[in-house]
C-alpha cells in the first residue's frame, strides 16, 4: 500500500497530469482516425519523450495506449472503419446500430463499457498483481501454443457468413505471418527475391487495407445510399435499466479482457474478439448479433480496454510485451534505463503503480472525451462521402507509409484492401485474417519451441493440463457451429411433431 501511495505522489504533479491528458487527447484522435494507430503514435512519441523524466514519459505513452484503444471505437461505430485493431469487433454491431439511427446510443455504450473495463482491470491489477503475474509465469511455449490455437479456433464462431471461411481466412493470416526470415534457421521463406519481404509483412498496413480501403471500395458502389452518412447526435448514456441488463456482459468481458491482457503476447484485439464471441455465446438473442445489438458493443469494448490495462502487467512485471503498443513502451522503458521484469516490480514498485495510476486518469479522461467530445468526432460523418473516403484513403496511405517510412507498406495496404474487398464478397471476413496474422508469429514460435522441448513428439503436448484445457476449449469452439445446427434440427423436429 505504501508503494501505491508513493506512486500516486509521483503522478500527481501538474505537468504529469497535463502530459497524461495530452496523451489521452492524442490517443483518442489517433485511435479515431483510420490509418493512424496507437503503436505508430507511441513509436513517434518515443523521440519526443526521451527528454522527460521516466514517470511522465511512460505515463503519457500508457495514457495514449488506453485512449487509443477507446478512440478506435468512434470510427468503428460511425464509419465502419476501426481506427485501431481492437475496435474491429466493435464495428460488427456498433456500425449497424449507428446505421439504424442510434449512433449516440452506440457511442454511449462503447464509452461506458470501455471505462468500466479499463478501471476493472486496473483495480484487479492493484490488488492481485503478484498473483496474476505468477499465473502468467506458469505458461511455457506449449501453453502459449495451445492458447493461440484456441484463440484461432474462436474464429469459427465469429461473426460472418461462414465458419469455414473464417477458419480459412485465419489460416491464411497465419501463413502470411510466416513470410520473411525463419527465426531459428535464418532461411528466407516466401520472399520471392523481394528484399522488403525478408522482414515479413507488418500487420498494420494489412489491417488498414482490409478495413479502410476495403470499406472505401464498398462505399464507392453505394455513394448515394442514405445510410452512409450517419448523423450522430450527442453521446447518449445508457439508462440504468439498460446497464442492469448488460451488467453481466460488461463484467464477463472485463474479467476475460483482463485475463487475456495479462497473458503475455495476447493483446486487446484477441480480447475484443473473444469478448464479442463470449457475449454472443451467452446471449439470449444470438440472432440479433451483427444487426446492432448492445451486447455486441459492450462485449468487445469492455474486453479490449480491460486487456489494455492487463497487457501492461507482463510488460512491466515480466518484460514480455502484451501487445504491439506495449512492446514499444517496453523499448521506451529500456531507453530510460529501466530493466523491465520481476526486478522492476520488486525494486521500484512505486514506479509501476504510478504508471497504472496514469492509466486510471486516462480512463477518466476518455470518459469525459467520450461523453463531451464524441459529438465533435462524429462531425466526420457530415463530410460528403465523395470527400470523406478519399480523405480516409489519404490517412491510410500516410499511416501505412509512416509505419515503416516505406512505400512498400503502402503497396501492402493497397493489395490487402483490394484482395479483402473481393474476399468479403465471397464470405471471407477480414477480421479472421487479421487475427491469424497477429497470432501467426506466436503460433509458429511456440510450436517450434514446443517441438524442441518435446523432441518433435506432438503427443507430448498433452502432458500439460493447461494445454489439455485449452485444446478442450478449442474442440468445443470448433464444434460449436455443428452443435448450433444440431440444436436447430432438434428444435425443428420438435416443432414438426
Amino acid at each position, binding site marked *: 500500500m505504501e508503494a501505491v501511495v508513493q506512486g500516486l505522489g509521483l503522478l500527481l504533479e501538474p505537468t504529469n497530469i497535463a502530459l497524461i491528458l495530452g496523451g489521452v487527447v492524442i490517443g483518442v484522435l489517433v485511435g479515431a482516425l483510420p490509418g493512424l494507430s496507437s503503436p505508430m503514435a507511441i513509436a513517434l512519441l518515443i523521440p519526443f519523450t526521451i527528454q522527460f523524466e521516466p514517470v511522465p514519459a511512460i505515463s503519457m505513452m500508457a495514457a495514449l495506449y488506453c485512449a487509443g484503444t477507446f478512440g478506435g471505437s468512434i470510427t468503428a461505430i460511425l464509419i465502419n472503419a476501426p481506427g485501431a485493431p481492437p475496435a474491429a469487433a466493435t464495428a460488427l454491431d456498433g456500425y449497424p446500430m449507428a446505421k439504424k439511427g442510434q449512433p449516440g446510443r452506440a457511442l454511449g455504450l462503447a464509452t461506458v463499457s470501455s471505462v468500466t473495463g479499463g478501471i476493472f482491470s486496473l483495480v484487479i491489477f492493484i490488488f492481485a498483481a503478484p498473483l496474476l503475474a505468477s499465473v502468467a509465469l506458469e505458461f511455457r511455449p506449449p501453453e502459449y501454443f495451445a492458447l493461440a490455437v484456441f484463440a484461432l479456433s474462436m474464429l469459427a464462431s465469429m461473426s460472418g457468413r461462414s465458419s469455414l471461411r473464417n*477458419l*480459412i481466412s485465419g489460416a491464411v493470416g497465419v501463413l502470411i505471418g510466416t513470410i520473411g526470415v525463419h527465426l531459428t534457421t535464418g532461411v528466407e*521463406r516466401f520472399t520471392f527475391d523481394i528484399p522488403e519481404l525478408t522482414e515479413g509483412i507488418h500487420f498494420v498496413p494489412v489491417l488498414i487495407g482490409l478495413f479502410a480501403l476495403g470499406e472505401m471500395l464498398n462505399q464507392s458502389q453505394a455513394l448515394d445510399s442514405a445510410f452512409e452518412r450517419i448523423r450522430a447526435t450527442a453521446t447518449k448514456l445508457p439508462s440504468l435499466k439498460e446497464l442492469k441488463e448488460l451488467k453481466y456482459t460488461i463484467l464477463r468481458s472485463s474479467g476475460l479482457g483482463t485475463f487475456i491482457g495479462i497473458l503475455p503476447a495476447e493483446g486487446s484485439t484477441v480480447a475484443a474478439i473473444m469478448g464479442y464471441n463470449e457475449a454472443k455465446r451467452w446471449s439470449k438473442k444470438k440472432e440479433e448479433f451483427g444487426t446492432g445489438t448492445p451486447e455486441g458493443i459492450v462485449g468487445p469494448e469492455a474486453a479490449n480496454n480491460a486487456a489494455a490495462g492487463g497487457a501492461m502487467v507482463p510488460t512491466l512485471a515480466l518484460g514480455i510485451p502484451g501487445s504491439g503498443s506495449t512492446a514499444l513502451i517496453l523499448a521506451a522503458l529500456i531507453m530510460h534505463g529501466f530493466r523491465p521484469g520481476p526486478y522492476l516490480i520488486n525494486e521500484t514498485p512505486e514506479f509501476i503503480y504510478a504508471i497504472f495510476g496514469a492509466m486510471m486518469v486516462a480512463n477518466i479522461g476518455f470518459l469525459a472525451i467520450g461523453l463531451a467530445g464524441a459529438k465533435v468526432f462524429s462531425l466526420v460523418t457530415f463530410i460528403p462521402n465523395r470527400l470523406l473516403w478519399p480523405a480516409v484513403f489519404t490517412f491510410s496511405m500516410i499511416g501505412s507509409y509512416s509505419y515503416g517510412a516505406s512505400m512498400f507498406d503502402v503497396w501492402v495496404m493497397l493489395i490487402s484492401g483490394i484482395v479483402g474487398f473481393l474476399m468479403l464478397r465471397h464470405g471471407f471476413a477480414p477480421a479472421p485474417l487479421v487475427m491469424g496474422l497477429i497470432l501467426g508469429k506466436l503460433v509458429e514460435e511456440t510450436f517450434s519451441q514446443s517441438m524442441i522441448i518435446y523432441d518433435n513428439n506432438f503427443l507430448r503436448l498433452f502432458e500439460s493440463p493447461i494445454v489439455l484445457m485449452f485444446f478442450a476449449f478449442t474442440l468445443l469452439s470448433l464444434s460449436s457451429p455443428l452443435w448450433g445446427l444440431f440444436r436447430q434440427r432438434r428444435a425443428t423436429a420438435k416443432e414438426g411433431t
Partner: protein
Amino acid sequence: MPNEAEKAGDMEGARSAGPAARLIHPVDAGLALIIWALVAWLYYETTQFEEVSFLFSQNVPPQMFPRILLILIALLALAMPFEHLLLKRKGKDIDKGRRVPVKGIAWITIVALVGIVAAAPLLGTLLTMVAICLVIPLLWGERRLQIILPFAVIFPLCIAFLFNIVLGVFFDPGVVGLSIR
C-alpha cells in the same frame, strides 16, 4: 418493385438452382480450385527453401509450419463447394453479397488508386495526397470545384503539417519536388 440488383440476384439464384448446383456450388467450387492452385504453388515454393540440417533446425525445419498450414487450408477448402448445403439449413445465404456484380466505379477506383500510388515516386508524398484528394472525388461524381479544390489543397497540407512537421515523418519530395527545388 424489385430493383436491378434483386433481378440479377434472382436470375443467378435460378441458374444456381440447376441439378449440378444441388450438391456442388459452382462459384465455391471455382474458388476452391483457385485456393488449391495457390496452395500447390506455395507448397512447391516450400520445396525451394534453403536446405538446413535437422541438427541446425533443431527438428523444426523452416518448411514444416508453412506446410502444415497449407495442408490445413487445402483440407478446409475441400469442404467449400458443399458448404452451401449446411449454411442453407442454418438459414444463411452464402450468395447474399455476390449476386450483384462489382460495379464499374469500384474497378475504376482501384485502377485510379494503383495508378496514383505507382506515380508516387515521381510525384512525391505531398503531391500524391493532392492527386488522391482531387482525382477520387471527381471520379465519384463530385463536380463542385469550389469544394474539391480547397479540399485537395488544404487537406494534404494539414496531413503534411501533422506528419512531416509535428511528427517528423520523412516525406519523399519525388522527382517533381526535386525538379522544383
